[in-house]
């Protein structure tokens, strides 16, 4: 296996990784989550979530620039001191682990309920994690290039989906707009925001590998493109499926693909289109796995991180099955607790870190060059 130990990725590759990560598993769960709260206003929820979403992008961008090419864990340790820094780092790792678990269980549940009901979840996770581990061992540069290669395919298939569904759009599905006031759309927004944008905090872990100075622009572009794809998906779900199917089905996006029927011969495309969300879920999981392994390695001051991959993969495998034993418990967690969990670790904690860095910077400036 050729190794790219100190590989660097370009700004373009960085942006693509963010886009793929933002879309991630959200493309599967956001339609049903938003519709559960906002009904036919689901698309408004998604649109609203851009506001906090882009604000979060600015937050991450600011942190990324402040870290000056260091990763989140190392940067936190350096900024906050050995003890508090390590504690905060541990919290971040804890979050990465749990988010990783939701990703693997989401993906395996999707495949087993919708496409391969007789396959055990474990088998799917094992194969999936194997590919993730192989990608990790090849290094960032390799998988960033892979993302660059798959991105056009993803966009092509996505455009394909949109164009083929255009004949089935029914504008009357949008009505009535905001019938029950602003609150339902707002509640839906907090879910769309948490699942869609918050979870990209993981990008702060690949900062050391990114060549180039200002990180603000690629992060903002990545969030905007990823958010736009999600918005189009939710919008299409409302227009084509209507709220009832969106609320009823766990995976409306899949039903959306099933709906394609051009002249009774171009149909049954769902398996091909399932490929697009397997790509995105894969990249999001990969980013999380990378963050987790690298985070542990940096925190423990390990020289080499490869030996962590297989044990961690096994942990993820077991925990995915144990933590979410059924789809019902998974959706219970996702709907009732997840947004708050996300926002604690992805907004409050980074905000704290940023404030700390600023405060420290000011103290240093006023006290002269003491350090």
């Amino acid at each position: 296996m050729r190794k790219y130990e100190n590989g660097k990725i370009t700004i373009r590759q960085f942006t693509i990784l963010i886009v793929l990560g933002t879309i991630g598993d959200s493309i599967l769960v956001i339609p049903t989550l938003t519709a559960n709260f906002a009904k036919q206003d689901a698309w408004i929820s998604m649109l609203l979530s851009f506001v906090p979403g882009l604000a979060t992008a600015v937050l991450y961008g600011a942190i990324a620039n402040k870290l000056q090419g260091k990763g989140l864990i190392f940067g936190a340790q350096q900024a906050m001191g050995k003890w508090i820094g390590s504690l905060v780092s541990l919290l971040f790792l804890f979050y990465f682990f749990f988010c990783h678990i939701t990703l693997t269980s989401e993906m395996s549940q999707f495949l087993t309920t919708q496409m391969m009901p007789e396959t055990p979840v474990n088998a799917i996770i094992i194969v999936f994690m194997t590919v993730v581990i192989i990608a990790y061992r090849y290094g960032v540069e390799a998988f960033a290039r892979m993302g660059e290669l798959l991105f056009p395919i993803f966009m092509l298939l996505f455009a394909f989906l949109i164009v083929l569904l255009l004949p089935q759009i029914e504008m009357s599905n949008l009505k009535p707009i905001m019938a029950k006031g602003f609150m339902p759309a707002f509640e839906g927004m907090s879910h769309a925001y948490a699942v869609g944008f918050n979870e990209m905090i993981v990008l702060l872990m690949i900062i050391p590998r990114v060549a180039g100075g200002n990180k603000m622009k690629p992060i903002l572009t990545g969030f905007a493109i990823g958010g736009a794809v999600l918005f189009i998906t939710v919008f299409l779900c409302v227009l084509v499926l209507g709220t009832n199917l969106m609320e009823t089905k766990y995976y409306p996006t899949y039903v959306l693909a099933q709906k394609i029927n051009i002249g009774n011969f171009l149909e049954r495309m769902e398996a091909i289109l399932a490929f697009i969300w397997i790509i995105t879920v894969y990249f999001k999981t990969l980013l999380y796995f990378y963050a987790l392994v690298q985070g542990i390695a940096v925190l423990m001051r390990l020289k080499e991180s490869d030996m962590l991959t297989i044990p961690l993969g096994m942990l993820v495998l077991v925990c995915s099955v144990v933590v979410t034993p059924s789809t019902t418990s998974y959706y219970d967690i996702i709907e009732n607790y997840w947004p708050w969990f996300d926002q604690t670790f992805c907004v409050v904690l980074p905000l704290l870190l940023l404030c700390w860095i600023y405060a420290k910077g000011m103290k240093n400036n006023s006290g002269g060059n003491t350090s």
Partner: protein
Amino acid sequence: MKRKLFGKAVLILVCMLLLSGCWSRRELNELMIVLGVGMDWEDGEYVVSFQVVNPSEISTLNRSGQRPPTTLYQGRGKTAFEAARSVTAEAPRKVYLGHLQMYVIGEKLARRGISEFMDNTLRDNEMRMDFNLVIAKGMKAEDVLKLFTPLERLPTQNMLHSLKTSEKSWAPTVSVNVDDMLDMLSSEGNELAITGIHLLGSQKKAQHKENIETYQPSSRYRYTGIAVFKKDKLIGWLNEEESKGYSDITDKLDSTSLELPCGERTYIGIEIISSRSKIEMKIVDGKPEANVSIRTEANVVDRMCKDVDLRDPAVLERLQGEIVKVMKGHAEASVKKAKSLKSDVFGFGNKLGQGYPQYWERVKENWSDEGFPELKVSYHFEAFIRKTGTTGNTTMQ
């Protein structure tokens, strides 16, 4: 060197593990492809009938002609799933529902309610949301599926095609798929309506091959009427004219035939070529009002009365007025019937909810029992005759 060799051997072994194919693969010869499902209610149990393709009989090469193109398997059970699984006790393979085209519900079961067993259908991952639903009018669903049909070898294929064609060019039928059903059952102020099917002629002969060996099959199916539901229970039927009115108001009508009387048992035949309808809801003096506007284009296809001069624009004008009258009659009849059944199949309530959400919140509780039956519906129909076929007036005496 040895280690490298060992590594390669392991790699090949691992590959073999993965190359064995899908975990739950099912080859074509292990599947029973179900085209039609019939659901009935008998002695407190669900009876499910699967119409399964007989692969060797539909192949063009070695068709024996001894066996029917499809076979019917039946199972019983307390739930739809149990009924479906009990089929395996007599069928050689497991059923595959991905190609399901027709879902026939027996009238008895439909009167009992359909949402209970439909839940299983929505939950299943194999079923796609695009098959059509029909109600077996006055008979059991299984009988509809036990029928030799001419032209198409597969009976459900035959039924599906005639459903689609008759919806397009005859009007008193509507094709409702599961997706539409779910929409109509879950949305407020909109009740379900599904086309009925029933068998004509001798039911005994239907399931024998002789049925299609005669010029006119002694037993054949026909789509008749539209079943009106309240919540998920069937409560009545619309007749042909009311059904036409229904599909006209709900904008499902494309083309149909109309007859304008012009004398003793003589008519002017009209072909509707396109019809667009729009329902608008208003609130006047605190009461909702519906306005149905329809714009129709038509051709004259038959002239039985010699005194109707088709070369005269004034006559066409008069005929247009008569078309409006007939169509309005259909629409009024169907609204009247729906009102007497207290079931808002047209979705007036739904439209009201879209336009006046606050008002709708107040009235939706009693909509089907009070609001809809007292709803004032006004019609605004327009008809335009465009062509009179290849001739004006004929010289026939």
